């Protein structure tokens, strides 16, 4: 089975490495990391991910700015984006049924099971 491609854009290097390790260990995913949000768009164009995991607060270019670039790119505009952030709590995400302002959200810290469930849900709803 073809592996699903996940792009992780987050300036927290340790966190992105752990996401990559865990997702690739499952055997279902190919994960690419981008710790510099200024290069996020270019990496996404080259990698063509099935889903993007995106931090909200990053130096230089923040999450909403990256989403703006992605949604205005012909190749990437339909790629699902999941915000993964320490700015909100799991309870807040649950209260909003996983969506805030139309975007899928995951709270940090969380579990790998939650992460995989959210990725699968987003990929299915964006065939």
């Amino acid at each position, binding site marked *: 089975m073809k592996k699903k491609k996940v792009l992780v854009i987050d300036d*927290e290097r*340790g966190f992105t490495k752990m996401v990559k390790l*865990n997702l690739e260990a499952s055997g279902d995913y190919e994960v690419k990391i981008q710790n510099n949000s200024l290069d996020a768009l270019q990496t996404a164009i080259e990698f063509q991910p099935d889903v993007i995991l995106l931090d909200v607060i990053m130096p230089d270019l923040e999450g*909403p700015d990256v989403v703006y670039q992605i949604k205005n790119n012909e190749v990437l505009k339909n790629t699902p984006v999941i915000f993964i952030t320490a700015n909100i709590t799991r309870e807040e995400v649950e209260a909003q049924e996983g969506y805030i302002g139309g975007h899928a959200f995951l709270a940090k810290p969380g579990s790998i099971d939650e992460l995989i469930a959210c990725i699968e849900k987003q990929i299915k709803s964006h065939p």
Partner: protein
Amino acid sequence: MKSQFGKKLKVLLVENNLVDRKVIIKMLSTSPYGHFDPKFASSLVEAFELLPKHKFDVVLLDLNVDDSKGLETLKKFHRRFPHLPVVVNTGSYQDDLGLKAITKGAQDYLIKGMYKSYSLVKSLYYAVERKRVEEELKNAYNKLQQTQIQLIQAEKMNVIGGLASGVAHEVKNPLATILYGVEYLENSLKTSDEKIVLTLDSIQEAAKSANNIIKGLLDFASLTNLKKTPENINTLIDQAIHLTRPQCERVSVHLEKNLQNDLPLIKIDRNRIQQVIVDLIVNAIYAMNNGGRLMIRTYGKKFSDQDVGWIDRRGRSFGQGDDVVVVDFEDTGPGIKDEYLIKIFDPFFTTRRAAGGIGLGLSIARTIMNSHGGIISLHNKTGGGARARLIFKANKKEPV
């Protein structure tokens, strides 16, 4: 409250001299100026027995009675019944004694044989009225003190909130790394070595416990418990104007508004945003303490990076081209010095330290706006004066 003058007064006459007592009774009963219902006591003990049984309006107190002499009589009386108006009626005249009696709580000081019926009646009625006003003033002062304590407490909570929010973000990121790391090790090692399993479980428990502490801190500071409901920002502005109008009038600040009618609703915690709006108005008033004009404007637009500087755009929940609601506060004050602009949102930065400012208003305002995914910015206008700007994400396109 209705004035007491003209009402029948219940008077307790504390007087052990029978002649003096008769003179006073005669004055009170024959006076055309007032109506009295007098009762008598010869000593303080007797007076203290009578007082709880009757609802006296005023006490006419001789300082030298059977069981007490001099100012001590008044002090003892005032300690037991601090809310009852007392007029001192004494045979010994000393200027300083009269003044001391007033400082010890008496409403007036009469010298026996030196007043006539009208003066006595007037003194008793005035004492009742003066005491009533004094009590009202005391109550208002106490209320003000309580409000001040509550405000200080609220500000302290907001500082904790600001710190908690910053700490939470910085600590939750490494915690996320630790927890994902532990999960990876658990899944990939699949070991039955008890010591390794115990170690990994302990790391996981410790990280979760740290996360719970952070969560508790945030809950304590109420930042994660914002009660966000769809609101019309114009309503909040009208209420804030109403609240701050007396302050505006005091320093001749003319307040104008230009509020767009069909604004989209925004999802906010109305109390917290109300706090931000009031703070910005009050800041503008302080900047124009010799009078001026404050214009408050609301409008909807598509967000553009040109609307605010890059540093103000951090943490917002909307991007270029998204529908937003903007509130501008433009004053005609002296503007903000350039060296202040970069630190104006820092906690404890204030230009009004001498006037009691503690420098938390704007810091808290920014924390509140950040917790709404909104923007607050402050700039000098090219024509003079300062402009504060709030930007909120417009949730729906429903007209107000």
